[in-house]
């Protein structure tokens, strides 16, 4: 089978892309004049605190910020040895956050996998909601099912997420006694993983998933509906009906299979748009994801922290597109046999 070879090839291109992205991220972060430390040194000088200046100067050479930019990049990425030998992204050393005065890995630590968790839940929500509703809306096109689902969908698209979050929190707490804010019970934070903690996280996840996923789900639903409607008019659907298939079975086997392609292809786009889109929501809901961290890091020119977070988002995106590409090849023989004589 060529699938495995394709997956390996796709993985190779992903690594290549990641490398290019790392250059871009590094360049963009360094575009604004100055860096965190030189700003701080200037400030300390102005207020005459020479001890602080010495420490900042030490950090500067410690993190090779006194070197030319291209060297800084290679040291950051881990292609060249820094003052302490090879220790860059490749080696798993993500650098030092000057703003928080702690290693980057420590700051992002927990919030990394919480981010992944929240976004996976939201993506899952999008698909679970959009798939049946989109198919139903297409199958019953121009009926009350179609119109009401479109209405709810547009409402979901048009409502600002943070507003939706506040409303849901209020009523969720009042009627279902759902917790407000955060991703787990504060008492459990920092505890090792156990059943209590998992349960708490799951309950806390309900509202954020809903808030982050709603607009994506309604957009996806409309897209699937439109694709399905296009497919429903095609002759092969008529062929299937002429065979004597039941409508539901026919829908699932023929038009849905074809309309599924864009649905799958969207996995890659969904991930980054959700992560960047959920920054505001995370701030409002008090979620411990890396969204708010990224915001702070960018504001204070905390280069290692923001660089790492951006790289992480890029990685998620690339993994998403890779998954959707490989899935598409599995799903659609036309792509699989591309270039072969028809």
């Amino acid at each position, binding site marked *: 089978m060529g699938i495995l070879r394709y997956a390996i090839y796709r993985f190779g291109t992903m690594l290549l892309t990641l490398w290019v992205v790392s250059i871009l991220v590094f360049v963009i972060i360094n575009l604004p004049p100055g860096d965190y430390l030189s700003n701080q040194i200037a400030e300390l000088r102005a207020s005459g605190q020479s001890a602080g200046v010495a420490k900042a100067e030490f950090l500067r050479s410690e993190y090779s910020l006194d070197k030319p930019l291209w060297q800084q990049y290679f040291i950051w990425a881990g292609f060249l040895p820094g003052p302490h030998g090879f220790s860059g992204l490749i080696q798993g050393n993500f650098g030092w956050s000057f703003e928080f005065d702690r290693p980057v890995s420590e700051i992002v630590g927990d919030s990394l996998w919480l981010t992944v968790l929240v976004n996976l839940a939201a993506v899952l929500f999008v698909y679970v909601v959009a798939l049946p509703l989109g198919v139903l809306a297409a199958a019953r096109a121009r009926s009350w099912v179609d119109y009401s689902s479109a209405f709810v969908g547009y409402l979901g698209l048009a409502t600002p997420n943070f507003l939706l979050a506040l409303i849901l929190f209020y009523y969720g707490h009042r009627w279902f006694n759902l917790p407000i804010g955060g991703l787990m019970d504060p008492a459990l934070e920092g505890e090792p993983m156990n059943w209590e903690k998992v349960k708490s996280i799951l309950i806390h996840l309900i509202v954020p998933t809903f808030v982050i996923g709603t607009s994506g789900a309604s957009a996806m639903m409309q897209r699937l509906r439109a694709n399905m409607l296009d497919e429903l008019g095609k*002759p*092969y659907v008529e*062929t299937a009906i002429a065979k*004597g298939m039941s409508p539901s079975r026919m829908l699932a*086997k023929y038009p849905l299979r074809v309309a599924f392609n864009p649905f799958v292809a969207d996995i890659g786009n969904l991930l980054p748009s959700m992560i960047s889109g959920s920054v505001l929501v995370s701030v409002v809901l008090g979620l411990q994801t890396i969204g708010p961290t990224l915001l702070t890091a960018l504001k204070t020119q905390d280069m290692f922290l923001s660089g790492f977070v951006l790289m992480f988002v890029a990685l998620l995106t690339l993994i998403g597109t890779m998954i959707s590409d490989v899935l598409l090849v599995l*799903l659609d*023989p*036309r792509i699989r046999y591309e270039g*072969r004589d028809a």
Partner: protein
Amino acid sequence: MRDLRGNQIAMIFQEPMRSLSPLHRIGNQVAEVLWLHGRKSESEAKKEVLTCFERVGFPDPERTYSSYPFELSGGMRQRAMIAMAMVAQPQLLIADEPTTALDVTTQAQVLGLMKELQRDTGMAMILVTHDLGVVANMAEQVVVMHKGRVMEAGAAEPLLSAPAHPYTRALIEAAPKIPAAAAPQPVPGRSDLILELKSVSKTYSMRAGKGWKAPSLIFACRGVDLLLPRGKTLAIVGESGSGKTTAARIALGAEPPDEGGSVLFRPRAGEAAIEVHKMDRTARTAFQREAQMVFQDPYSSLSPRMRILDTMTEPLEIHHIGTQSERRERAAKMLQTVGLGADMLQRYPHAFSGGQRQRLSIARALMLEPSLLVCDEPTSALDVSVQEQILRLLEKIRDENQLSYLFISHDLAVVARIADEVAVMRRGLVVEQATPETLFHNPQHPYTKALIAAQPEPDIHRPINLKLVAQGAGRPEDWPEKFRFSGFEAPPLVPLEPGHKVRCHV
């Protein structure tokens, strides 16, 4: 109802390309009929489907079973559709224009197959078609419909030989026929040539599926020599994939020929010839004023977002001809020439029927007053009665304006009517070339014979000769000794008599 569908009543549709799901294997789609009606277990169903595939003429049923539709040709796909309809042995088969989308030779074979299957199984068949030739070959009973009402109904023989209703008569009239033997026309003179194709070849390379394999080569045209005298019509006839459209595109300079081939164009008699593929920018613009094209599909060759007026005057704008009002006037006049009203200029294409749109395409092509018109199957998307009108229009315009046509078609009867000379192409090679009279009454090449034999005629006493079709349309290896060749080594094009060339061994 669902129990009847597929089980008792089966259906075959018009477009085999789109009537099969592209994402499921053929075997799956055919065997599904048996699973659905709970008649067979999976393995038994497969066995039955394989027998059925063999029955409808798939050389390798096992392979077909696991093929996807896009791996098969149009004719093979229609065979798969027939297998799908037949596999449950229905009582009634409804076939909705089952062969309209197919080449003539393929059509003949598919019709033959359907008839044979019907004889073997004794099922009833409802055949919907616009082609009286197909009716004459297939039907016992005929119902003629027009605008939702039955015009005439009855047994096929009396209805076709002595139609009572004027509409039926008009239909039979309009059906293009190969003319009865006439005095052989002289070959058109070769003195004043407007277009000359000299050993034009075109090779496409297909990217191979696996990166390390050499790309496979497709020979779309091989050493095509064609001469078009001024004011005459040269027709190229062949099936899809025969290279006729490629030849036309090369003639218009839309595509370069392979090394060694050239196309010469003489805009006026006595002027020096221009080499179409070695023109600079200004020469090319001038050439485009002289040579225009009418396309096959009138539905997609007019922009749906442009008013007819804009579509018509655009060529004049591009070539900076006339003022706004002059252009407008010319467009109005041109519409009248092609039989439409000048008041239609403000409309959009969707407000026109297929025949009217093809008139619009012709009008658009004529706006620049070209001397050469390339018509790529201008009537194959139209109904017979409309086809007749368009052909008459093309003839009229040609004679009034001294136009020269390069006419591409797969339909011999159409060509017989309009052409002065016909070149029959098969897989990139011209296999026979002569005047239409010679070609139809003294065809030499087995492929030409197959084409003529495959043409369904609205005459119940002249059924399609399937044996002739099968042999001629088959592989060159199976042709009679004189014409046989295998691989790339084709015999030369030999003149048998003046103006009649055949590709054969001498």
